[in-house]
Each structure stands twice: as C-alpha cells, then as structure tokens.
C-alpha cells in the first residue's frame, strides 16, 4: 500500500527541521510549508523536468527514485540518481536564468516537494525553511566536492595519456612566498 504523500512529507520535514534546530519544530510551521508546497507525486517513468527548460525550483525527494540523464550525440546518458533526502535541480533557486542541464524522471512512483524562490521568500521566519536552506548548503557543497573528485580522476587520465609533467615546470615565486611568507 502506498504511503500518504502528505504524511511522508510531514515526516521528512519534521526530521530535517529537528536536526537543524536541535529541537522539535512547531506543527504550525510544518503545516505552513506543506500548504504552500503540497507534495507532488510522480508515477514511474514520468518526467519531472527536461533538459533545456528554465530552472525555477529545486526538487526535494521525499521518497522514491529520480534519475538524471543528458542528451548526447550517442543518445541519452544517465548521469546520476536521487533518492529520499536528496535534492535535484537546486541551481534553479539562485540562478533561475540557467536552463536545466539534465532531464530528470521518476524510475518508480515517487513523492517530492517543490522548493521555489517564492517559497523561500515568503518563509523567511519559518525554521522549516531555514532547515531546507541548511540542507541545500550541504547538498551543493557535496555535489561540488564530487564533481571536483571527478575532475581529479580526469586529471589522472590526462596524465596517463600525455605522459609526465613537462621538464622545467617548477614552483613559481608566488608559491615560494606561500611556503615562506607570513600568515594572516
């Protein structure tokens, strides 16, 4: 039997806000968020958003699974998946003029909360919104670290294709200053 999407979302937000504030969150604050952003159900196979569309919201997965894919000359390529507690499309909140970089679809029946800039603006004093923002901070930081890790892997592949560092490429005087200079 499928769980009630509103109860699932309430449970999700309650956990998020309690972790953030280290105390129980007021029921009225939870209700306010759920009224402004009712949980959205996606059936397995349904598209959540498409690559190239303008980004206007972030998606917080309450339960289920979403998969992101990009169009390549060789066809669709899966680039990531998101499950419960994950966030997708978060750049839409602070860079809304950017197009979606991937198409996201549900791979099984899923429930999500749509976080819009308007919701954040109207919920300035709501600790549940604060908790969502705090969750977003850590989500984006983790995503950047993962991407940078992929860059380091690409570097290693480049090194193996190009060979060792060219001779004569030595640390600069700025680097010497860094190793010998004073700290602020």
């Amino acid at each position, binding site marked *: 039997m499928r769980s009630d999407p509103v109860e699932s979302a309430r449970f999700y937000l309650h956990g998020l806000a309690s972790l*953030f*504030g*280290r105390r129980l969150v007021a029921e009225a604050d939870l209700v306010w968020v759920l009224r402004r952003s009712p949980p959205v159900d996606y059936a397995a196979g349904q598209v959540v958003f498409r690559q190239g569309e303008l980004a206007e919201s972030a998606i917080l997965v309450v339960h289920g699974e979403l998969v992101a894919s990009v169009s390549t000359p060789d066809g669709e390529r899966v680039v990531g998946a998101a499950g419960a507690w994950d966030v997708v499309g*978060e*750049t839409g*909140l*602070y*860079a*809304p003029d*950017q197009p979606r*970089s991937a198409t996201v679809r549900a791979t099984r029946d899923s429930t999500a909360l749509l976080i819009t*800039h308007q919701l*954040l*603006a109207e919920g*300035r*004093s709501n*600790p549940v919104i*604060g908790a969502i*923002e*705090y969750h*977003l*901070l*850590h989500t*984006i*930081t*983790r*995503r*950047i*670290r993962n*991407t*940078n890790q992929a*860059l*380091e892997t*690409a*570097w*290693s592949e*480049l*090194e193996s*294709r*190009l*060979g060792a*560092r*060219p001779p004569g*490429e030595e*640390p*600069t*005087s*700025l*680097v010497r*200053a*860094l190793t010998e*200079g*004073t*700290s*602020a």
Partner: protein
Amino acid sequence: MSHFRAEADLLLAAHPYVDADPSDIVELLQAATLREIPPATVLCRQGEVADELYFLLRGTVAVVKRDPEGLDRPIGEVHAPTLIGQMAIIDRARRTASVLTASTVLVAAMAWPTFHALVREPGSRGLALRRLLLSSLTRQLVAGTARLRALLAAGAHPDPQSGLELRDEMMRASGLLEGWTDDLQRAEPGADTQPLPRDLRLA
C-alpha cells in the same frame, strides 16, 4: 549600525537572489573580526583545516592551487566584495587552495564557532548568511560546471602540444568550482594592487 553598510550593499549586489536585508549583512560583518592585511601575506593555506570564513571587503587576493602531481599553480585573482573559503567552513574540510593578498586587503574573518551558531540560527542573521552562501555556491557550481563542459569538449582528444595548457585550464576550472575564483567578477583591481612576480601565469 551604519558602519559596514556600504560593504553590505556591495556584497548583496554581488550575490543575486539573496533577498536579505542589508542591516542583517551588517550584523554578520560585525560578528566577524576586521583585519587590514598588507600585500604578499598568506590568508589561508591549502591543506589546513578551515577555521574561518572570510568576507573580502576591499582589495585583491591571488589564489594558488596544488595540482594532483604536487605542483602549485596560480589560478586567478579575486576582487572584493566576495566570500572566500566558504566550502571548507561548511563541511569543515581542509582548504583546497592557498590565498595570498595581492594588495592591501580588508577582510572580515568569521571564526568557526560564530559561523556554526549563525548558520543554524532561524532569525534574520542566519537567513542572510545561508542565502549569501547559497548564492555563492550556486554561482560557483554553475560556472565551474560550464567550464568543465567546455574543457571536456575541447580536451576530448588532447595532444602533447596542448597538454600543459589543458592542465592549467583544468586547475582553473577546479578553482571556479570550489569558489576560489569567479568568472563573473569583472571589477578592476584597486590602485594599491601590487604587481605580481613576472614568472606568474595568472588567469
């Protein structure tokens, strides 16, 4: 309360969609320690555990990043107003680049305990801090990813002649991604910016 108002306005102008009141940014800056630092001074070093978030209020800094082979590469300059060192203070990781002042700079350094308390604060100061950080992180994720995509397209079939340039570009993309540099910054450096050593290859 008017102290720092001009800096708060500039910080907000540089971070779109933050939707915070300038007076809250002023309070954030007042919760930090103000430092005027001379040129050629290390602000933070790669590998150190982060214990401060920096609001660069005036001046210019240079960023150096160590590549996976251990070579330190200058990857760019950053001009005020901006945040520096935000990622490592969020997840309490080690610095992934070193920062050296390229001019006399004015920074407001927010210590970890203050940051930790403020970023979880439900009030307006916490909101302003979280949204400044979200705006900054989003911008670096968008800019860094775009640079990486361009690199992947250009570097799909690298040849030995272009290898060095590609390595530099990869480190610059990494610096963008981590928020050390910013493609969107176009401000001219201040009059007191020191000429950097001639053998530097800055972005």
